[in-house]
Every structure is written in structure tokens, then in C-alpha cells.
């Protein structure tokens, strides 16, 4: 196992333990997702490891970007990461945090992506079907993304069932233009 994984797992587990003590593990997860969107993916990574910015400056900038959207726990966590020069691990920590949290609760997250919102009845039917396949609690999260055009994409853990028009077009493109 690589060193990064070991280190990131330690941070993630510590954060999760703290969050559970304060009864806000779910909230922290959502906030982490936000932080992840801002920083880990995309260009925000540069801010974390930039050699010319002081620690104070970085913390100020992050505070200004996130503002009131996250709890103080997240701020102090990010500050700790920056102090220990582990900023680049944020994405990995988030990933591990999420999977640990779901695992601890014996809960699975099912993400359904469609172009238009599904009706509550449809979601309930999906929930019922998933229950027959998976053990434990299943949480259906709905995402509306007009880019998928039509159809639906269901993601549970690593498994993806992609029946969207977007994916079909992509497969068609691959058949017709395999080289690019």
C-alpha cells in the first residue's frame, strides 16, 4: 500500500471520529464535497502547495472563498493539513472519508442521473428494486443533468449502469471514429 494512502486514511479516520463525536458526520461529508469541488479537482490544488504564499495568506484566501458555507471544524482541518504540508491529499482524504462513513453505517449510496427530475413514485420504485439486490440501507440521490439528454445513469459504488443518450452517442462515436 502506498504511503499516501496510509497517511490519507489516518487523517480521514480522525476527521470522521471527530465529526461523529459532534454528531455532524453527514454535514461534514457534504461540506467536504464542496471543498473538494473547489480545491482538489480543478486548479485549486495550486493554492494548497504554492511556495510563494504564506500559511496565513492561504488560510485567509480559503476563508474568503468558502465563507460561511462550511463549519469551523473544516477550517481547522484544512489549516492542519496546510501546516503539515499534506494539502495535496485532500481529494484522497475525502474519498476515504466518504467510503468509511458509508461503510460504518452499512449504507450504500445510489446516484441516479437524468435530464429531467424523476417523480417521487419513480424514485420509490427504484429504491425498492435496489433493496432486493443490496443488503443494508440504500440512499437514492437524484442528480439532474441536462447534458445526458435522455435516459438515465445509475451509479452504486463502482458499478455504473449507463443508459443515457449521451453514453450511447459516445459509444457510436467510438465505433465510427475509433482513432480519436
Amino acid at each position: 500500500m502506498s504511503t499516501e494512502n496510509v497517511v490519507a486514511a489516518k487523517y480521514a479516520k480522525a476527521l470522521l471520529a471527530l465529526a461523529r463525536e459532534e454528531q455532524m458526520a453527514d454535514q461534514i461529508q457534504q461540506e467536504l464535497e464542496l471543498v473538494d469541488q473547489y480545491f482538489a479537482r480543478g486548479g485549486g490544488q495550486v493554492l494548497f502547495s504554492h511556495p510563494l504564499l504564506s500559511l496565513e495568506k492561504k488560510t485567509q484566501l480559503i476563508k474568503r472563498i468558502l465563507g460561511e458555507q462550511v463549519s469551523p471544524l473544516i477550517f481547522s482541518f484544512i489549516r492542519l493539513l496546510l501546516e503539515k504540508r499534506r494539502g495535496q491529499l485532500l481529494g484522497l482524504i475525502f474519498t476515504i472519508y466518504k467510503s468509511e462513513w458509508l461503510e460504518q453505517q452499512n449504507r450504500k449510496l445510489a446516484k441516479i442521473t437524468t435530464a429531467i427530475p424523476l417523480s417521487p413514485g419513480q424514485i420509490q420504485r427504484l429504491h425498492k428494486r435496489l433493496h432486493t439486490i443490496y443488503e443494508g440501507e440504500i440512499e437514492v440521490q437524484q442528480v439532474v443533468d441536462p447534458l445526458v439528454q435522455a435516459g438515465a445513469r445509475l451509479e452504486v459504488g463502482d458499478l455504473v449502469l449507463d443508459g443515457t443518450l449521451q453514453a450511447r452517442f459516445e459509444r457510436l462515436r467510438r465505433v465510427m471514429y475509433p482513432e480519436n
Partner: protein
Amino acid sequence: MKISPAEVTEVIKKQLEGFTGQADLEEVGTVLQIGDGICRVWGLQGAMSMELLELPHNVYGMVLNLERDNVGCVLLGDYAKIKEGDPVKRTRRIMEVPVGRQLLGRVVNTLGQPVDGRGELAAGYKSRPVERRAHGVVDRQPVAEPLQTGIKAIDAMIPIGRGQRELIIGDRQTGKTAVAVDTIINQKSTDVFCIYVAIGQKQSTVAQVVKTLEDHGVLEKTIVVVAGASEPAPMLYLAPYAGCAMAEDFMMQGQHALIVYDDLSKHAMAYRQMSLLLRRPPGREAYPGDVFYLHSRLLERASKLNAQLGGGSLTALPIIETQAGDISAYIPTNVISITDGQIYLESGLFYSGQRPAVNVGLSVSRVGGNAQIKAMKQMAGRLRLDMSQYRELAAFAQFGSDLDKATQAQLARGERMMRILRQPQYAPMPVEEQVVILFAGTSGFLDDIAVPEISRFEREIVAFMRQEHRALMESILQKGTLDADRQEQIKEAIKAFKQKF
């Protein structure tokens, strides 16, 4: 020009063959970390070792490390556009390459795609997985058929059999590739197909080899697999396995194939690079622990199949480059212990003009003796004896000039035999001609000819025998033995020739 709509429809229909609009259940992970051609993927719990993964921008990866919650893979192709968070799909396939006769005469890369600018491969080729378990004991039979290299020093003293693995080892610039290329050229009129795998070499060097093969008319029965020095390490790592899969296809059809791995030192280095980047623990000389298995599983695939399986064979000639003649370094000792013998080339011999620079003392062939025609075996026994006596005396004779007659005769004989074993590049010699010239040497017919004249004598007697005694030459090749009667005939012929010389 008029284009009919029907034609257009036909083309589109063809392209759409195999396309299904059905949604498949896929396993998707995300890129955690990427760099130096290595990628860590979160998820993919079900991924297999060596499985191909599909990344965006038409890049493929191959799984090498399976860890608790992530997999480490190497990337094949241009990974510059891939970034963290990208989706990675499982393909549930092990890497495959195209195989078959369509590849003959072509220069292809590790993935089997042509790189010689002569268009796509002809249609109808099959595919084979690059990695497969070698044949077991029951599937094999002993190596007993010769694979003639056309090089006197090798065919006489270090014979190679079909299905054997013979290492070619030596420093840089000692003619290792030349020995391999000569062997390929000598297969021109045999039923052996050749595969030349260039690993980590300069493109110019490979182009030179391809040109040589083309000039000698053997390219049409050769496949050249190139993983050049500018290609990423995973391509270098996979090249020999890809070449081996192509060669195995001939073997499985009951035919004979010869594969040259040029060279496995660079292959080991590419694997070391990948392993270190994947953070596998380094061992001796920073090579990973499984570097022995890397080469043993490759070379073990060379074999002579039994009659039930068609009796095909795959002969492997791996090449190893040593540093300053050090054959006790890690990789050379590994490969020496895996192969069935080695041809040791020395720079000292090379620069003193003894080319091919084969050190006959250190070179051995552990199975080749059975794979020699009888006539050659008869000659080789005496030659080996003469040579070993010469080596012993040559060192001793440097100290004094007062030598008795017998010793002087021995030295003179040895000197002439050494001269006989010289051979120009790209000039392989048929085995029956080798037998005649070795017979002349070991029977003492050359003892009264000045050493500088030996090469001319050799050239002319071969031409003479070819012209005047064609039937005798053919009978040597067909019967394979030199009985007393035939020996007498050769003696007479040589005597007759010497009178004119």
C-alpha cells in the same frame, strides 16, 4: 465522380457492425493520482491483475498493483490529458495483440499496430493474449532438430536446436545483434519464421536492421516488433511478450519460429522504472524482487512441442548487454541461469579481428549437441579438442620461443582453426560447406598454408566443391554423416584442389 447513396449506406452499415445501443453494467473507478506514466485508481474492487482499463481520450492502462482500496496501473499511450477525478472503466480483457501471417514483412509496435508506413494490416488476422502460461512437461519433446545459424563458430561448437533458448551476451559493440541478424538471414531458405523484438533501441539502429533484412530478402518471413527508446516504459516492458505471442502462433500451428529479444537488459531497466514508480520495494541493483520471474516466464515460453500438438517449435535468442565484461551482474546471471547456454562475445577478440568475437571457452550450449547433424558432430569433437589445447599452449608460449616440434605444430593448428572460425558479417554458410572446411582444418590439410592465406583458401575451396563435387556436398546434407568412404572422397577433392592453389 458520382457517389450512389447505396454505397454510402453500405459503408455506414459496415462501420456500425458490432454496435449495440444496449446499456452494459460497467465498473468505474476514478483517477486518484497520475504521473510518470503511472496511475492510481480508486475503486475497481473486481479488477484483475494485467487487466486493461479504459481511460478518457482513448488511453488504455494495464493493472499491475492490486491494493486494498485502489489499483495501480501503467498507462499505454499519451496520458498528458488525463487528470485527477477522471473515470476509469474496466474492460474485463487481458491485453491482446494481432498474430498471424498478415504480420510477416511488417514493422509493428508493442500493440501490433504497423509503424512502417505501409498501411493497415491485411484483414483477417487473429489475436492472442500477450501473457500466457508456458507449455508444461507433457506438451514438450526434447530438442533434437538443428537451427542453423550459418556461423561456423556457433554451428560447430555451440549448436542451437529448435526450441532452445540460447543467450547472446557481451559488452556493447561486440556484434551481438550481428549474430542474431545473421541467424535470421540464414533462415531465408528454411521453414523458420523470424520475429525480431527491438527493446529500447534507437530508431535509426532498428531502421538499419530492417534495411539489412530487406536487402537479404528475409524481411518477408520476419516480423519486427519495435518499442523504441522514446516510448514509455510500459511499452518496452510489454514488447517481448507481444513478440512472443506472435511467435507462439506459428509454433501452435506446427511451424517453426525464431525470436530474438534485443535486448533484455533494457527490458529489465524498463520494468525497474515501472516498479519503482509503482512504489514496489527495490532489491539488488534497485530491481524489484520479481525481475527473475519477469525473464523466466518469458523465456520458458520457448519450446519444442510434442507430435500431438503439431511438433512446432519456438527458439529464443535473448540478448544481454554486459558492462565491462561483468557477467556476474544481477541480470546477466539471472538470464544465464534461465537459458540453455550462452554465446559469449568478447571485445578483446573483436578488436583483435576475430569476428564473430565468440569466446569458445566460455560459451556453451546445454542441449545443442543432440541438435547437430552427425557430420558436424564428428568435426566438432576434434575441433573442440584442438581449440582447447591451443588455448592452453597459447598462454604458455608467450613466455618462451624454444618450443618442441609437437607444441609448435599444435600452436600452428590452433592458429589456423581460429582463422577458420572468422567469418564476414551477413555471409552465413550452409552446413555442408562448414563441414568441408572444418574437415580440411582438423585433418591437417591447412597446416602447410600460411595463416593470411586461409581466408582465400576457404573461399576458393567452397566454390570448387560447389562446382566440381555437387553430388558429394548434397549427400553430406542428406545423409548427415561422414562415413569413411565419404571422408576419403573429400580428402581426394581437397588434395586435388591444393595442387591448383
